[in-house]
């Protein structure tokens, strides 16, 4: 009787597991810990001075009030618009569903700063669209979007797709029998909607509302473009202004401010949890999704109404953006003779920082996507198939940097990398590497979630069969597991790429000369009054985004349902 000792197979397991724990701790735990440390012990010395000084400042509370006003207002618009559209799309026999969903969800994939820029071009005094129609206000008139109401409106439009997507996911799993039973009991459509559908949809609606609120409170692009010129400051823009005006000396103060945003965002998430837990919303049967309501003679008017919404939220601003990018100089009326592509050649070929920004954004997004995919596949493996309790805790941590507003993570990254790295003595502050770190931390969860849903679709027996055949963990990962979850992991990598490519919030605080991103370039062109150049860059980013989204549609058969938000 001889006992074979612990084997190389298990050592491999443990080494990989330990490495993953370290990666997650570095990306998720360290930034938040560092931020907490700075707020309560600036420079390592325990002190509540910065804490109370910041909370005692009138600016802080004005910005907090403004943040709450715009976030709540924006969420209200997003919820109303998103849920009405979701109900119509999911429950009725409208035609052209797929095309409409793509158009309605697209604004979510367009960067907030691009949305803001586009809308400014649509309604401003220099608007080529209004000029073509002869409706433009005189030059010098204040753009009506430079206001609280403007911010609320655009936040609402930006995040309506979030509410739409969560609600529609719920409506899809609503069994037909539940509605048919109500019909058999003699209920009218409105009555069924009120007594059966909406009550069962509460979790989706609440989740969508919380998502829209957290996204609105953390949004930087829209209040930066609309609020800074209008002197309407919210928490993220206050942090940006303090930091870019005064430099690292105010780090403790902005650490406290970013924690304030974090606390508000967490409150939104917790409130959602409490609301959903109070009642039982579990649906017991599963069958084909219901599309129970025929529109009859209302079909055409309803379809027209929906497409009008798509026109307003997508086509109008994009048209305004495109036309602006063709205008030779601010205020010049656009017609066949004045239209020019010079703005494009300028940003692509002549402007050094813009050229760098294209290269930086491409390589940063691509690196982040690849690294995150390589981490997500083994991480998802341990999370879904090994169910280690330690990793469960880490899984929650992975969510945090994305659930919390981007400025929170950006400030944390500055705090970590301001001083040169210990031992190595190299400083990452002011290089692209600090941005890459922030992207990895913030977007890891975007790559991980699709990988996890990929694992849920694969039968674990496929891995066990390889184990039986004698393959060790790394060999299994390479020859069996990775090929099986590759479609889902690739979709996750694409989401990471698209999000990072359109990102501004993090890089606005972390960039320096030489490490500009596309978001930063659009922002600085617009701040410098060069809306035409800003529009040209923005149009190019939208085109790249659109092209990648359409590519994924071609591959969509191999990607688990629910991974790509723009797919019906």
């Amino acid at each position, binding site marked *: *009787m*001889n*006992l*074979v*000792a*612990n*084997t190389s*197979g*298990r050592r491999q397991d443990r080494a990989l597991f330990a490495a993953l724990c370290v990666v997650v701790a570095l990306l998720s735990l360290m930034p938040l810990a560092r931020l907490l440390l700075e707020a309560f012990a600036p420079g390592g010395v325990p002190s509540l001075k910065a804490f109370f000084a910041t909370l005692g400042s009138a600016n802080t509370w004005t910005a907090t009030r403004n943040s709450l006003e715009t976030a709540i207002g924006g969420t209200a618009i997003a919820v109303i618009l998103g849920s009405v559209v979701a109900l119509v799309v999911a429950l009725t026999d409208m035609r052209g569903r797929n095309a409409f969903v793509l158009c309605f969800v697209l604004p979510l994939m367009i960067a907030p700063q691009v949305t803001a820029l586009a809308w400014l071009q649509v309604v401003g005094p220099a608007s080529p669209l209004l000029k073509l129609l002869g409706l433009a206000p005189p030059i010098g008139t204040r753009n009506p979007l430079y206001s609280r109401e403007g911010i609320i409106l655009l936040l609402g439009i930006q995040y309506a797709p979030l509410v739409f997507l969560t609600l529609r996911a719920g409506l899809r799993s609503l069994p037909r029998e539940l509605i048919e039973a109500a019909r058999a009991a003699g209920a009218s459509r409105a009555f069924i909607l009120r007594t059966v559908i909406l009550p069962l949809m509460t979790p989706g609606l609440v989740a969508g509302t919380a998502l829209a609120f957290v996204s609105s409170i953390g949004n930087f692009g829209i209040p930066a473009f609309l609020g800074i010129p209008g002197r309407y400051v919210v928490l993220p823009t206050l942090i940006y202004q303090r930091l870019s005006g005064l430099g690292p000396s105010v780090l403790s103060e902005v650490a406290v401010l970013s924690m304030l945003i974090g606390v508000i965002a967490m409150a939104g998430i917790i409130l959602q949890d409490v609301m959903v837990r109070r009642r039982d919303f579990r649906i017991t049967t599963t069958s084909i999704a219901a599309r129970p309501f025929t529109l009859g003679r209302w079909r055409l008017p309803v379809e027209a109404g929906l497409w009008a919404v798509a026109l307003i939220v997508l086509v109008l601003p994009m048209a305004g953006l495109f036309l602006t990018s063709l205008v030779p100089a601010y205020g010049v009326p656009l017609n066949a003779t004045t239209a020019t592509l010079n703005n494009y050649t300028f940003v692509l070929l002549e402007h050094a920082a813009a050229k760098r920004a294209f290269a930086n954004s491409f390589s940063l997004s691509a690196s982040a996507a690849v690294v995150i995919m390589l981490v997500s596949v083994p991480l998802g493996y341990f999370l879904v198939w090994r169910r280690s309790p330690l990793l469960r805790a880490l899984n929650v941590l992975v969510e945090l940097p994305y659930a919390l507003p981007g400025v929170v993570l950006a400030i944390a990254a500055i705090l970590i990398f301001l001083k040169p790295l210990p031992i190595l003595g190299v400083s990452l502050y002011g290089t692209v590497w600090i941005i890459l770190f922030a992207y990895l931390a913030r977007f890891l969860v975007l790559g991980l979630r699709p990988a996890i849903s990929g694992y849920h679709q694969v*039968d674990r*027996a*496929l891995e*066990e*069969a*390889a*184990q*039986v*055949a*004698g*393959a*060790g963990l790394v*060999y299994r990962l390479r*020859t*069996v597991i990775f*090929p*099986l979850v590759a479609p889902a992991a690739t979709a996750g990598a694409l989401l990471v790429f698209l999000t990072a490519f359109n990102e501004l919030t993090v890089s606005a605080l972390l960039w320096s000369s030489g490490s500009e991103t596309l978001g930063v370039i659009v922002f600085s062109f617009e701040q410098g009054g060069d809306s035409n150049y800003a529009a040209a860059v923005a149009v190019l980013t939208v085109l790249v985004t659109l092209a990648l989204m359409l590519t994924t549609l071609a591959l969509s058969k191999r990607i688990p349902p629910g991974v790509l938000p723009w797919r019906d």
Partner: protein
Amino acid sequence: MARLTIETVTKDFGSFKALDRVSLDAADGEFIAVLGPSGCGKTTLLRLIAGFDEVASGTIRIGETVVSSPAGHVATELRRVGIVFQNYALWPHMTVAENVGYSLRVAGVATAERNRRVEEALMLVDLGGFGDRRPANLSGGQRQRVALARCLVAAPSLVLLDEPLANLDVHLRAAMEDEFAAFHRRTGNTMIYITHDQAEAMALADRIAVMDHGRLLQLATPSELFREPANAMVASFIGHGMVLPLTDILPEGDGRARARLFGRELTLRCARDQRAARQGDLCVRAGDLTLAGADGDGLACRVTRVVYRGGLFRLEAVVEAEGGPTLSLDVPEPTSVAVGDAVTIAVKPGRGWAIPTAGGRDAS
């Protein structure tokens, strides 16, 4: 090829005891079916043998090697077991040949040698020339055979089959049953076959291990299991046995005994070491019962249900006594018996089985 020895293995998940002191010994080349309802622990047992999970206590040996014990655990990769999974677990991104040859690739077998052995294994399961196909383009039966070939090519010491027929339709099952029997004959492998289907287990296995609630209830040949169940649970699970209360059991030697059933004396079979007992249990099946006629010797019953079963009627009747159980028996067509009728039911002489009494009930 090797024998498998499982000694007092226990496995729990939290407070749930999935396996409770299970011992089982499979001789080299033996075909053992592990039979039980879902949740009985049979799949847990398979996963422990395969090494996917670790034992809480007890030991598992393959050949002379201890592979699982609280002191150590040999990784699945090193156990050289073959498994045929319930849903075959064929890798969809590989061809049939790549699926079959995977373990050889892991072991670093040269390509030419690998191809030869893969083709050989495919020929053995009648799939010669199918190497370039994808699993998605095969029928259910063909996939099953690919899974068998994949298992075969690695020359495993032990083959585990996890409900391999559960996903096939009825016609294919019979054909695959033959296939498994032939596979066993050809390879002479020790096989552990997990199933919840009695007919399957009886048709294939040398011995059957009946499990319930994490415990091994009986390990015996199919005929022993049917004729001489060791306890009331096995008696009622195998072949829909009825368990009835006996009194005054008197062994007469040579595996025969007399006893009383609701006061009526009868003769029955019993274990050779059966001792006299005041109380015990009788196992009978529908075929062991007969209608005795109004004045015959038997139990007075009232018919509660008559179901036509094609050529015969299945009668259900309640014994007219305090807490009388329901009996089932078959009567040939035609019959005039109807619901509500009074009938007399007798146990055919020598057909019942006295379930061996547990210690507590033993009167002597």
